[in-house]
């Protein structure tokens, strides 16, 4: 699904990623952990196609094709989704209108016909229920006036609506209380299957109690310094990042 080879990237002239190797297979969930400033978010942003990040070396293959050469919208249309750490507020664009345009853009890209208005509404309601979101959000402007937790829930709601093959969750748990973490995890777990893959970027082990990963990677100073099974996260929790280096 996703192969990252020797990835180096700069932000504002400073090298942040210093040679990342990672392979995420179809149906797998990997957790990427690491202290602040280790490069977790930079990796997520490079994968989503943010322009202010400069890749200086290496490559990223998604389903065998170079992901870095695709425009952000093309990545999404091909089934890549990122849950942002800080979702943008967009006044005047309603959640419904936004998602309908997104769903139909992706369908158009894949040569499918547009979704029927009633089917769309049904789908929205179903996914909102899954994430325990109030239906009033449908008509509200995107992320405007949403609390931190509501924004994160809205990200996972979008993921549920777009049904991506590869999802990158960038610190989706930060700012969430334990109940919200359970709800968000439920949303993620409902999409887990033999054809979907997840890269879960997190600072803390607790999210991984609910989204149990197949593999855990530890990122430090722009490199993966250790990989292992789900127990590695528990070890981290116990010994801290210094203890596993």
């Amino acid at each position, binding site marked *: 699904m996703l192969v990252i080879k020797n990835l180096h990237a700069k932000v504002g002239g400073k090298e942040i990623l210093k040679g990342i190797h990672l392979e995420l297979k179809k149906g797998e969930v990997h957790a990427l952990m690491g202290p602040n400033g280790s490069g977790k978010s930079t990796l997520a942003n490079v994968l989503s196609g943010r322009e202010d990040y400069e890749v200086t070396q290496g490559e990223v293959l998604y389903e065998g094709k170079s992901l870095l050469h695709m425009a952000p919208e093309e990545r999404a249309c091909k089934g890549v989704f990122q849950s942002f750490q800080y979702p943008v507020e*967009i006044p005047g664009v309603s959640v419904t209108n936004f998602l309908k345009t997104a769903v139909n853009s992706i369908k158009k890209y894949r040569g499918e016909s547009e979704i029927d208005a009633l089917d769309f509404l049904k789908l929205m309601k179903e996914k909102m229920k899954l994430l325990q979101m109030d239906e009033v959000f449908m008509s509200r402007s995107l992320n405007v006036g949403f609390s931190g937790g509501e924004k994160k829930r809205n990200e996972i709601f979008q993921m549920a609506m777009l049904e991506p093959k590869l999802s990158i969750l960038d610190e989706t748990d930060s700012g969430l209380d334990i109940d919200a973490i359970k709800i968000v995890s439920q949303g993620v777990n409902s999409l887990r299957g033999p054809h979907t893959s997840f890269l879960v970027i997190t600072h803390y082990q607790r999210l991984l109690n609910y989204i149990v990963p197949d593999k855990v990677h530890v990122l430090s100073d722009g490199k993966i310094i250790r990989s292992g099974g789900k127990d590695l996260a528990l070890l981290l929790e116990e010994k801290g990042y210094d203890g596993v280096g």
Partner: protein
Amino acid sequence: MTLHTVQDYVSQYKSLKQSLNGSVSPWLKELKDSAIEQFQKQGFPNKKVEEWKYTDISSFLESSFKPRHHEDSERIRGDLAIFGDGKENIEPFIFEGLDCYRVVFINGLFSKDLSKIEDLPSQVFLGNLQEFIKCHPHIARNYVNKKLHSKKNAFTSLNTALFSNGACLYVREGQKIKKPLHFIYFSTNSNSAHYLRNLFIIGKASKVTILESFGGEENAHYFNSVVSQIVTQEQSQCEHYRFQLEGKNAFHISDLYFEQGLKSEVRSFLFGIGGRFSRQDVNVPFTQGHAQCFLKGLLKPKGSQVIDFHTLVEHNVSNCVSDQFFKAVVEEKAQGVFDGKIIVAKGTKGTQARQINKNLLLSEGAQVFAKPNLEIYADDVECTHGSSTGQLDQKALFYLKSRGISEEEARKMLIHAFVSEIIESIPQEAVRKKIDHIVFSS
């Protein structure tokens, strides 16, 4: 290229005067004489005049427009014959699903055939100003007078001198007119100048909705000069819409006055979309207390268009409310101007005045001149204002694209979001839909 001079327009007035041949009442003749005199004194405004600092009229002065007079019967027949059987030219301006009374002017001339003024309540006059002056000279005289051309605007003086007709509405006391009144001013490729003088009087405690659409053949070259007075008497309510959708080569210069009575309420939506060059002045000189005026405007110039809005709100008396909300979206090499002035007179109390202006520039060559201008000489005032100009939010654009939405569609969504604050607040659904379509297809 030779520029047309004040003298050229004065000669036009002289020949018009001859053709009038005493068919105009002495008071109106006197008014017109004084207006042309005023115009001569004022001359065409140049960039040294504060109110015209951002508005370069040289493209107007380079253009030749034939004057048109109501006596010119052969031409009238010619113009109207084009529209005699087909209504297709005014079709684009009609609001689907909205049953309206309709008054149509073609090249500044009243068209009875295209108008729809049957079944009006007897308390209402709807039609053209010429006829109104004939039927109600004393009422007309109260409003069509020297008051307006004492102002700085030379184009208003010129209009007063050269107009022969215009739209007219007179609603007596206590009339709530359910059907909106739609005024369509359509122009063909006539190379002519149309001087329209419009008078709308809404009687005490009456309520009306006025829609005005200005438009023309796509590449038609013409000049529309428009002076309008909307008089709202005590406790009356007026919902007003103006769609400036002139043809691509057209010039449009208008001066609009809201003359509000005690406790009257005006809600006006102003759209500047068409024309090669347009300048719209909107004046709210409060002289009666407890009146409220809400102005919302949207300017959307593209190509090399110039769209200019000037507002002047004068709180001359206590306890009035004014609220202005103007947005501009400027594309390509176009230019937008919003110059909004609020004056709160000394000794007045309880004024509430608000003015918000937000502008969006979509390309490097696009320009906007925003000039909020407040002169407050009273203490007891609640006054807020703000002006901002920016570009599309790159972070928002990226967010939309990251969900699979194309660059083009994402830009469209963000522009839509920017103007929706104005469009979504339109109470009439048919109008809202129509303007939404116009804004995004133009």
